[in-house]
């Protein structure tokens, strides 16, 4: 059975792929998807820590605090995706593009 390190490295790889996506893509929707990937990598790390580093009862109020953090991350990610995509659609109505280098009204 793979240990903690394998899961942590998997989470780190997914997170870094997400970073590359945010930095190297021009399409806002793909950038938002890469953001979801980054949050996903963090979630893998949280759940792995929860399973392998469980604090003894009494130190933490719940043995599954790490998984609850991951659930909150999922809730916030859902809110972020909803708002992000709503903004994308609103911008598309005005500018007729989802390419970030063409949404440059504030560029000096």
């Amino acid at each position, binding site marked *: 059975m793979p240990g903690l390190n394998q899961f942590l490295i*998997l989470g780190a790889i997914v997170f*870094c792929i997400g*970073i590359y996506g945010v930095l190297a893509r021009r399409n806002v929707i793909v950038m938002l998807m890469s953001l979801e990937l980054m949050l996903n990598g963090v979630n893998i790390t949280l759940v792995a820590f929860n399973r392998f580093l469980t604090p003894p009862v009494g130190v933490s109020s719940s043995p599954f605090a790490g998984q609850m953090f991951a659930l909150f991350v999922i809730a916030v990610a859902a809110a972020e995706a909803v708002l992000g*995509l709503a903004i994308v659609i609103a911008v598309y109505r005005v500018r007729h593009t989802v390419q970030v280098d063409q949404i440059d009204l504030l560029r000096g």
Partner: protein
Amino acid sequence: MTEAIATIAFWVFAITTVVGALGVVLAKRVFHSAMFLVVALGSTAAIYVLLSADFLATVQVLVYTGAIVILVLFAIMLTPQSVELPAFAPGGQQVGGAVVALALLALVIAAIRTGPWPLAAQPLDQPTSFAIGQGFLTTFLFPFELASLVLLVALIGAILLARED
């Protein structure tokens, strides 16, 4: 025997997760990116099962591969793409992004490998739903209610932003 199966399952799903994630950032068409996102998020759910997080795996499938991917597909549908536009940033920025990502990856892996972790005597393999539900309604009650407020605000905000007027 179960050990061997768990190891094989870990490697299979870890590789699918990474391949799916790479597909998201490397696919030329946005729609293909969204399909690769399903692969990445679905195999992450399997990874959660291997970490004995059954409830979280269910939520992952429902919320991520269910709701969020559908939402992304709707956004793709509502913003018709002009095909001739470059999908990627100019070359220099791509190289920069790759360098940043790889440097951060090396840093994190080095940090992971530094010390022995204070591992628990026994990995936590219990049914989670009951304990998570109890935690949400006792210790974590305030953040739990706050999360519903955040979701409500996001709902209203999305309606306001995307409304045609």
